């Protein structure tokens, strides 16, 4: 063993001493994009992809139109991010800007959910539900309707400009722009009341800001789905880059079963299948690929895992009379086993998936708990810092506090203020003059924040330290405690 190790080390030293062979790039390092003309395909995965596409588009376009009655004074749109009034609505949930952590939680659930799905089934998100994929697919469908199939489109692009070519191209871009416009148009409905905004936008009465956003999302849809396409996935999107960290040898990916397919080669009807692989090198898998790659080269960054090549290959395998699923959703581990002739079960439960599932459960549980325990009253106490405390003419000490009371209910509510804590015993409480204050109680309007000044007076002898901890407690009309905030009562230095 030691001798072998020494020899390896010796080899390394020799290798390090040798002059390096420098490979010189043959041409420029920059390569232009090769246009991709994906061919239409039909089959199991294509049908799933159509169904998911229809569902995603339906959800996107329909959601803002769902109505949800919240009573008077509140919008009746089920999903609405009201920027102007700083409120977010999702069916029965209403959030204020300071509760933006719900959104953080939602994003966390989304992220961890994506991790879990990715480690289980690979790039399902990329291949089926990502908006880039959905809209690109839609644009390609329109392209196919207007300009024809792969070979027709290639011929059209090579042909010199003619009236017919101009007409087809114009029709395609007009259709794309129309889709983009409805996409951009639907986006603003998530931030404004859909029916009224629709009328305003169509009749030219909307604000410049809204038209700008419609234009912006029209432009991004048109450019990203019409022209950028797979380049978004390959160059712009960060997700494929770090997605590799979620995948392992037990993850389902679109796989060319090389052990079955190789050695590949053309095959004429009647020829023997002996001594050769099933792959007839028809290149159908390349022709249908929306990112233009050859899946037979193995797992690649560009592969979005849509499985269209599986449909294309199954079609060919059927025609040449070989078993389907030469290209299939499989794991690296199962491929290694099958190459040796063993069957390999697909393992769903693995440390990685258990960790992701646990994380998902924890985050979702925390979100649910936060949502269920969400208080409809918030209390913020701002202690007076100038003056820190006031000595009154009889020598007693008074502190001033500004209370911000958030009333998240859809009705006006009255609150009373109490001081709690050992130090606050004997404190005399009074409310400052302000709108909504009558005697001992303060009224806060529906769905808004009320401000009230509170004064607490203690006899000098009771102020036994410079800073005494006290709680300010908010009681509702029935005397039930609805909010509590820890603060301090400040007094002069030294013992009384």
């Amino acid at each position: 063993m030691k001798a072998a190790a020494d020899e390896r080390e010796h080899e390394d030293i020799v290798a390090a001493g040798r002059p390096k062979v420098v490979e010189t790039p043959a041409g420029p390092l920059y390569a232009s994009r090769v246009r991709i003309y994906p061919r239409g395909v039909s089959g199991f995965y294509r049908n799933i992809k159509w169904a998911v596409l229809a569902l995603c588009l339906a959800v996107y376009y329909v959601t803002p139109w769902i109505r949800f009655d919240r009573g008077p004074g509140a919008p009746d749109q089920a999903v609405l991010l009201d920027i102007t009034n700083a409120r977010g609505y999702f069916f029965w949930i209403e959030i204020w800007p300071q509760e933006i952590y719900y959104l953080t939680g939602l994003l966390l659930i989304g992220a961890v959910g994506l991790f879990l799905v990715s480690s289980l089934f690979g790039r399902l998100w990329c291949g089926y539900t990502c908006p880039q994929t959905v809209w690109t697919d839609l644009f390609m469908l329109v392209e196919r309707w207007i300009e024809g199939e792969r070979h027709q489109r290639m011929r059209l692009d090579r042909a010199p400009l003619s009236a017919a070519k101009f007409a087809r191209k114009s029709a395609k871009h007009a259709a794309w722009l129309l889709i983009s416009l409805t996409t951009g148009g639907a986006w603003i409905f998530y931030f404004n009341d859909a029916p009224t905004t629709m009328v305003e936008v169509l009749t030219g009465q909307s604000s410049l800001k809204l038209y700008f956003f419609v234009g912006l999302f029209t432009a991004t849809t048109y450019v990203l789905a019409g022209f950028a396409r797979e380049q978004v996935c390959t160059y712009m999107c960060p997700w494929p880059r770090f997605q590799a960290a979620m995948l392992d040898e037990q993850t389902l990916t679109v796989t060319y079963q090389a052990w079955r397919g190789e050695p590949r080669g053309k095959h004429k009807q009647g020829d023997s299948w002996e001594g050769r692989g099933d792959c007839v090198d028809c290149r159908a898998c390349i022709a249908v690929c929306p990112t233009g790659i050859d899946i037979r080269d193995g797992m690649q960054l560009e592969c979005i895992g849509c499985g269209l090549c599986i449909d294309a290959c199954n079609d060919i395998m059927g025609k040449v009379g070989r078993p389907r699923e030469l290209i299939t959703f499989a794991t690296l581990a199962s491929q290694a086993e099958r190459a040796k002739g063993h069957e390999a079960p697909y393992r769903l439960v693995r440390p990685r998936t258990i960790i992701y599932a646990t994380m998902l459960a924890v985050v979702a549980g925390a979100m649910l708990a936060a949502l269920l325990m969400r208080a409809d009253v918030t209390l913020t106490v701002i202690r007076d810092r100038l003056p820190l405390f006031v000595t009154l003419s009889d020598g007693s000490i008074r502190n001033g506090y500004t209370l911000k009371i958030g009333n998240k209910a859809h009705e006006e509510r009255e609150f009373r203020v109490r001081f709690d804590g050992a130090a606050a015993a004997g404190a005399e409480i009074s409310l400052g003059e302000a709108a909504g204050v009558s005697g001992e109680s303060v009224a806060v309007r529906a769905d808004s924040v009320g401000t009230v000044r509170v004064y607490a007076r203690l006899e000098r002898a009771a102020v036994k330290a410079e800073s005494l901890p006290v709680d300010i407690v908010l009681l509702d009309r029935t005397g039930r405690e609805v909010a509590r905030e820890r603060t301090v009562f400040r007094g002069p230095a030294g013992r009384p």
Partner: protein
Amino acid sequence: MPTKIEKDEISGQQTTGHEWDGIKELDTPMPKWWVYTFYATIVFSAVYFVLFPSVPFVNSYFGGILGYNQREDVARRIEEAAAEQAPFMRRIAAATLEEIRGNPELLTYAQIGGRIAFNNNCAPCHQVGGAGARGYPNLADDDWLWGGRLEDIHQTIQYGIRNSDDRSRQSAMPRYGADRILDQRQIGDVAEYVLSLSGRAEDAERAARGAQVFAEQCVACHGERGEGNRELGAPNLTNAIWLYGGDRRSIVETIHNARNGAMPAWEGRLDAATIKMLSVYVHALGGGE
């Protein structure tokens, strides 16, 4: 300057002719997008030069063909803000102080507007929040030299204290020591008596002597029991609040030199509505009566 363009053997790229220890610098062109962005900034600056204020002259500057001016912009925005506030300011100017107090909308507006006006105009002496300082009364406590009712506060702000305005609050304490009205021993006695009013005397005999001097010299303004007189701005000497310090030394100094603090009249400096808002704000600081 290299006279001959030298090509790098490996990359085929031309070099700059610079060489360090056998390593030559390639003359790789800037990326096109970068170069075009750079050209675009040059074009932008040329256009900006023409449109906006740019070239300084000796006594003036080239103002740009758009005629844009930041000062005018600010002035216009201030005017716009004032125009938005105008309806409220008119209502406050027309309303009595009690009417402002009774109207939630005006009360909220006056308290916020008053706070801003207070911080801009009053805080240098009275401190933010009316905390006060030695010689500048705390406006958040319950002790008022000239009265703590809304109209008292309003009058004090409007006309000020001991200034050249005839309507200002006027009174003057004699300089008992400096003008030799009382001798040092008598001043010490009175100080002892004043301390006794808030229960802090150490020498009862001296305080008794001081009481006689007090009865002759001080009761006219400060009252028989030192309870003060708001008509004259004479402070209450029996409580815990001392504008110039309540220790023996400070009291002796006050009797010797007198204090007679002054406050400017704000009528003329601030409009009537602002003075009303200030009154409402100060009244609500915690000590309003």
